[in-house]
């Protein structure tokens, strides 16, 4: 039995095709309404509202894992395709010019923030997991502080042992002056996000500066500290990228909720004062 994960190209195009068809039908409908001097924005607005409501349902589906509501993977695919469809429908609805008036402009901005955060999130979800795998370690996000504390403890006991066994405090002093900062918490966040090697370079630099002042025995301890720093670097990398994977939703979901609320109010206003 072969494990097929995800969707095949045919399946993806099927979903995209369906979305395109819906867009084309709506477009034709608005053209027809326009030619008969009707208000086409009403038609595109209703379709857009329907698509937005469907997008919001994904969040509800996540809260009902025990209901037989189709696998989450299908929902995610529909949510993704639906998100792009909503963007095109929004342009159709607003004639790609954006809304007039303060309320409309706020709604437009929120809609764009939601859409852009969604696209960025999608991009990150497709790129970051592989980068995390390539780091060679795997760690649960919530365990990162504990893991760093354990490494710090190990480093400090190594430093103490070095001081006791060798009788000099060179390594300990240098640790307190420089490396201690590194082992306190995740560092070089932005550099890790962009895949830089600053962290590795910094630690290597600190060790190199010290190396010529150490005896053979002390160097053995320094090597051990360096390998622990290397381990921490990988954890920092996980921290940075896993933080990204978790925090983009903190923008996307509240914005989507705000858009939904404003759209409903917008709909009420249209129905009460316009139609």
């Amino acid at each position, binding site marked *: 039995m072969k494990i097929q*994960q995800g969707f095949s190209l045919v399946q993806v195009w099927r979903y995209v095709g369906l979305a395109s068809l819906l867009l084309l039908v709506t477009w034709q409908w608005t053209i027809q309404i326009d030619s008969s001097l009707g208000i086409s924005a009403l038609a595109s607005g209703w379709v857009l509202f329907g698509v937005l409501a469907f997008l919001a349902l994904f969040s509800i589906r996540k809260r009902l894992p025990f209901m037989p509501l189709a*696998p989450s*993977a299908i929902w995610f695919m529909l949510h993704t395709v639906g998100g792009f469809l909503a963007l095109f429908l929004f342009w159709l609805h607003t004639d790609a010019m954006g809304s007039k008036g303060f309320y409309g402009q706020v709604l437009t901005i929120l809609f764009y923030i939601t859409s852009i955060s969604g696209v960025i999130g999608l991009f990150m979800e497709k790129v970051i997991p592989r980068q995390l795998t390539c780091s060679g370690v795997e760690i649960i996000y919530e365990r990162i502080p504990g893991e760093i504390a354990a490494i710090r403890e190990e480093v400090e006991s190594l430093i103490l042992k070095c001081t006791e066994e060798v009788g000099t405090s060179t390594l300990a002093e240098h640790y307190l002056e420089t490396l201690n900062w590194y082992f306190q918490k995740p560092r070089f966040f932005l550099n890790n996000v962009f895949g830089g090697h600053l962290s590795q370079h910094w630690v290597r630099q600190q060790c190199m500066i010290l190396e010529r002042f150490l005896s053979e025995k002390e160097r053995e301890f320094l090597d051990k500290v360096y390998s622990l720093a290397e381990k921490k670097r990988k954890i920092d990398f996980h921290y940075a990228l896993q933080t990204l994977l978790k925090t983009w939703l903190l923008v996307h979901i509240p914005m989507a909720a705000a858009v939904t609320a404003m759209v409903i109010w917008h709909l009420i206003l249209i129905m009460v004062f316009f139609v």
Partner: protein
Amino acid sequence: MAITTQERPQRWDQPFGLFMTDQDVDRLLTFPEISAIEESKFPAHCSLKGILKNDARVVKYSAGDIVIREGDYGNSAFLVLDGSLKVVLFPGLPGEMLGRRTIRKKTLWQAFKQLWTQRKTPEVRDVKSQGQHSLVRATEALGSSQVFLQDVPAILDKNKTASLGKGALFGELAALGRTPRTSTIFAETDAELLEIRWQGLREFRKYDQGWRRLIDQRYRANALNAHLRATSIFSHLDDKDLQEVADATLFETYGKFDWHLTYNKLQTKEKTLGIKDEPIIAQQGDYSDGILLVRTGFARVSIDRGNGQQTLTYLGTGDFYGADEIFRAWQGDSNVSLRVTITALGYAEMLRVPSKIVEKHLFAYWSSGREGFRKGALQSSVESRRMQDYIDRTLTDGALLEWAVEERFVNGTQAMLINMDRCVRCDDCVRACSAAHDGNPRFIRHGKTFENWMVANACMHCADPVCMIGCPTGAIHRSMSGGMVIINDDTCIGCETCANSCPYSNIRMVSIRDDVGNFITDPQNQKPILKATKCDLCADQISGPACVFACPHDAMRRVDFRETELDENTTGF
């Protein structure tokens, strides 16, 4: 520097029965089944008296107590010393009566209701119902419990039963063969039994002809023919020929029965050393002297490569190897030797059907090309071709399977495999599991990784479920429908035997709480009441395993490595 010393641990440091005395042993020697054993045949380091004292124990059962349950795994056999027992033959006792959990799928409404009926605190149990209908009763042995039957006369009325009296031996095939018990046996009257753990039983079989004959005869009579019949190459033989094959078949055991106890130690060893420690069943380059069939357990198939051994695949219960080599030799090919080495992966029981009998009963028919027999020949050549494909694989192609064999994940039938290249670490799977199980997830999204694959810490519903060995109440059992390993919360006494036995650390003990969220404690010692919990594949949920269902990136699968080829989709979606 001070050197720490310790007496070298000995085999009988941990006796089976804590309260066995020399007087008990002397008394046992007066029973005819034991006195018939030739004491002089046993070596000094493994004396008969030593076995009786350390590998056996006298257990008393009250009328109605269940001694063994159908479907349970056990590592001991029983000899009736006194009293009378009943074997339930047909139609068998319902699961609830045996202390098992009946799985009922939730209705759509019940599933939906979980949305607001879920408690805020995890692992809440209904204190009033707990223990009210308990089937568990404490026994004389400290900390031990038995499940008992409540209405014995009704059971006798409704079921066809057989009696077992003084001197009857039972449970030995399941204990030695690591197979589930085939029937339920309960005490009809108060009874005294000698329970012998498998190590003792193995020695009895090894050093005493009478016991060996008895055990082998029973296996031949009860299970061997069925096993051969179920093996494709023998399935076309008529009863007479099959019997002749069965009579000539040899039994062999390799490895340690309790391999799970040393598994974690093995993990710290260099991987190549692990293979070298495994007992060899058949060696690459040797002449094949028969077809090897796996009766129970697993066997690693490997070839020499460089300075090490490359694992090609593994054989499980029902698999066979060696037919093609003997067939080619029989056809006149010279230099037909075994292409691979077969070693016991933990523990394996093998059947060896000697070449001569195979030539007589299979090859003559195969070469005749008669309809019906062709299938057997075809099956053999398919297996052979498959093996050649494995041999031709590159190191990279076979690396994942090699890893799965090394880590013993091949034991799992429902291993939780996560593609870390797709997983966004959102923990939707964990939340879904928690939502479906009393607010506490039944797995940890963490585990051993190979390349981009992770086998998470979730129950794998093993083919060889060592966790089930030794459960005193049978609370952990294999479901008759679906074969998953599940725990009956009502009969779990929190003894931790299963959690300690699981080599993969996939069973977790949890402290249970009452309605208001306080821990439920034992009034005698104020310690919290523990229950064993593990993945049950969401057996009662209509959506199936919630974890897989909830993964938005389709990164997770429950897999049986034997049937799995990993093939990642390239679209990225």
